[in-house]
């Protein structure tokens, strides 16, 4: 599986993501600078976590308008899988590739802790290594992860099975509507999620629950 990680000024979990992809898929991803207007031909594009452009203006707003993102949008439309984690999720909503918005956490503080995630839909390119309803551990680390969308959009997301992950067992850390932790686009090839599966992939991290996400994509592509 060939993958690319887009690097914005202020990205800070790019390296974590590169390590996770290399560990699970056996291939080290290409790192693409945000000013590059053409991404390499890959199976998966990842927008990593961090504080692109310092989160100034609005989280992800400036990065969403970078040259690399124009090509990400093109490739997403052509069916390439795109994963946005944390700041990457914020960038995807700002770029209009995913609906809704990520507002400041309900308690207004940054939060870094482990939460429980329920796999709300295991029949997606990003979750098929998990089972439906399975509850997995996953850390979060963000200040603006409070997912919101209007009622009509929410109904569509829920009705079409586009909610991939939900915070489970009362661990919603940010006030997200319907406990939403990760959503898909209409075509199912773009996933945005706030939690960090890339930080739970080896024994040192105290668990391997995050590997399933990357294994899912690899499995999808191998099929």
């Amino acid at each position, binding site marked *: 599986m060939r993958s690319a990680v887009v690097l914005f*000024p*202020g990205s*800070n*979990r790019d*390296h*974590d993501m590169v*390590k*996770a992809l290399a560990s699970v898929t056996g291939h080290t991803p290409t790192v693409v600078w945000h000013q590059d207007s053409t991404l390499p031909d890959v199976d998966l594009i990842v927008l990593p*976590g*961090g*504080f692109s*452009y*310092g*989160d*100034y203006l609005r989280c992800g707003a400036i990065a969403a308008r970078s040259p690399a993102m124009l090509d990400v949008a093109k490739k997403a439309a052509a069916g390439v899988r795109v994963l946005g984690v944390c700041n990457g999720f914020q960038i995807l909503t700002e770029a209009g590739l995913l609906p809704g918005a990520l507002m400041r956490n309900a308690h207004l*503080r*940054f*939060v*870094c*802790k482990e939460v429980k995630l329920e796999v709300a839909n295991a029949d997606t390119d990003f979750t098929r290594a998990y089972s439906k309803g399975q509850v997995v551990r996953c*850390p979060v*680390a963000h*200040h603006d992860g409070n997912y919101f969308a209007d009622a009509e959009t929410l109904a569509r997301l829920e009705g079409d099975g586009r909610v991939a992950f939900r915070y489970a067992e009362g661990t919603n850390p940010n006030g997200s509507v319907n406990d939403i932790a990760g959503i898909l686009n209409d075509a199912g090839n773009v996933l945005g999620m706030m939690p*960090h599966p*890339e*930080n739970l992939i080896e*024994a*040192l*991290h105290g668990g391997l629950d995050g590997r399933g996400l990357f294994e899912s994509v690899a499995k999808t592509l191998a099929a």
Partner: protein
Amino acid sequence: MLRNDIAITPELIASHGLKPDEYERILDLIGREPTFTELGIFSAMWNEHCSYKSSKKWLKTLPTKGPKVVIGPGENAGVIDIEDGDVAVFKMESHNHPSYIEPYQGATTGVGGILRDVFTMGAKPIAAMNSLSFGEPSHPKTRHLVAGVVAGVGGYGNSFGVPTVGGEVRFHARYNGNCLVNAFALGLAKADGIFLSEAKGVGLPVVYLGAKTGRDGVGGATMASAEFDDQIEEKRPTVQVGDPFTEKRLLEACLELMKTGAVIAIQDMGAAGLTCSAVEMGAKGNLGLRLDLDKVPVREENMTAYEMMLSESQERMLMVLEPSKEKLAESIFVKWELDFAICGETTDDLRFRVIHHGEEVANLPIKELGDQAPEYDRPWVEPFKAEPISFTSIPAVSNVADALVKIIGTPDMCSRAWVYEQYDCLVQGNSATVPGGDAGVVRVEGTNKALAMSSDVTPRYCEADPYEGGKQAVAESWRNITAVGATPIAVTDNLNFANPEKPEAMGQFVRALQGLGEACRSLEFPIVSGNVSLYNETNGRGILPTPTIVGVGLLKDVTKMVTIAFKNDGDELFLVGGHGTHLGQSIYLRELFGREEGTPPPVDLAKERKHGDFVRAAIDKRLLTSCHDLSDGGLAVSLAEMAMAGKKGASVPLGQSAHMAAFAEDQARYVIAVSPANAARVVADAAAAGVPLVRLGTVGGTALDFGTAGKVEIETVRKAFDSWLPEYMGGEMA
């Protein structure tokens, strides 16, 4: 606008913090009256913060050498050998006064400054920690300070992308008017990839890097000079504003640049900004330096030479560049959208010259400014030492379990989760622990080894006996590193004390330093970097003496690490060091009976070492399933923390004088858990090493059962532990 020909009056000199004899010394040195800009430069270089003039004499007595010390004090940070050609670079620094004035920005710039110290040396920051001391919870400013400082520490570190792996938070009335914010950072480099500030070579370009210079942080001196020029913007805060986004780019650009061979010397701009960095580079290299201020990137118009030289705008660096690499260097900074400006050159005349609008506004001897600043032998007296208290005056409690629940729900003993959950402790993917254990542990990328670090000091002990308190701070840090299985290597210190011009406060400083020094020598735990913060007092009342120590150790095989959490039902519990009896200055006495009395527990360094070496060896042999040191609150608190972390109870019957066994704070002790299969071996090893070992009981159940001394469900303890801080911070503002 401030002109350079302002008359130098005694009032102006005094407002720059220079004493009459110091001014005489300036006149002797330069043989004429200084210009206004020169006066500012002297005040910046000769103040306590930059010159260490009150503390130098005593700092020289500390042990700073050892087989693992690569670079000791005097550089931006200390450097230790962690084998395989790797080195760890670390330091702690205070940002106390700014944080009290403006907690969020004060804390962010404290974190930013220490991160810069580390990556200036060519090291990639891989861990941060902090030690925070606030006033009593009921003081009207405390909640505001906690909220702002914690958000600030997180705001900078999280965005920059360094995991904050631990720290300390305490409350005491003596910090009411003067909180402490001590920030620590640790970076990783190759032994042959360390960069220093010492300039080498004449006629080489001096380059300004990073963010632009503004008027922020020009300091008290400028504020004081407003009386003779009412156009200065006197209301501008003296606290600098941090921009972690710029710092992150500066890090990436510097590390990229350092790989190219373009950097001959580099120095970050911290306190006293351009002045201090330029003088230090020249003085250390025995070179002169000429700065052309018209080339310095500025973000405000009409800045004077005085303001530019004293600005403490953040995220800036000064570098001596290899001239052949100029284009390459510039392209890296352009890529990261940072300023890059050649603004001076090195010279052979040992003068520090500053040019502004074509005029020479300063021309000073660089050595005397830098490494020959005044040095004082401040008078000191034997400081206050608390009287011992007799056993009979200490009330007993019959139910240890009830007492534990009370104690664990107090401001100083309760869970810090509300604080550390605001810090990203996972970024970079190498954290082996989450905060709340004994030491923070971070793997060295690409290897199986890890670094352990722990920040410690017990200020109430230091107040009651500065010498023993100083020893104890070092011993506790050493113990915490040992408790995860790591071998302690070296420390950085952050010495927070009151006004050194008061002999009593100076006496506290002297005695605490003697204690630190003795402990560091005895434990072979040298001090490789540090910072001194004096004058921490308000309305004549000083803070508790607070010599914060951060120790760093190496764990050769991270898979051998143990944590405090109970792992398996049926594991046997032992107390290394045996039961204690010392309740002077204990949490027990303070929290249950409101008495801050007695002498602190004495630290027997030989015992400390023997017990610690035993524990470390047992962890190395994989004989322990968990381990926790004993400190504040004694055995009962350690057991409670182990039970909560592991979500498992324990049966630990305590016999007579249960309150003493449960809450004594005798030093050099650890609780260890051992599988039944290994218990006999651990007992035999302890006997062979001459280490007292008491069998405490077994892990299991859902409660902490102290036998006749009471029993409590872990959930009850957990609730008390978790409640206080969120409820306090969520309460109405006073």
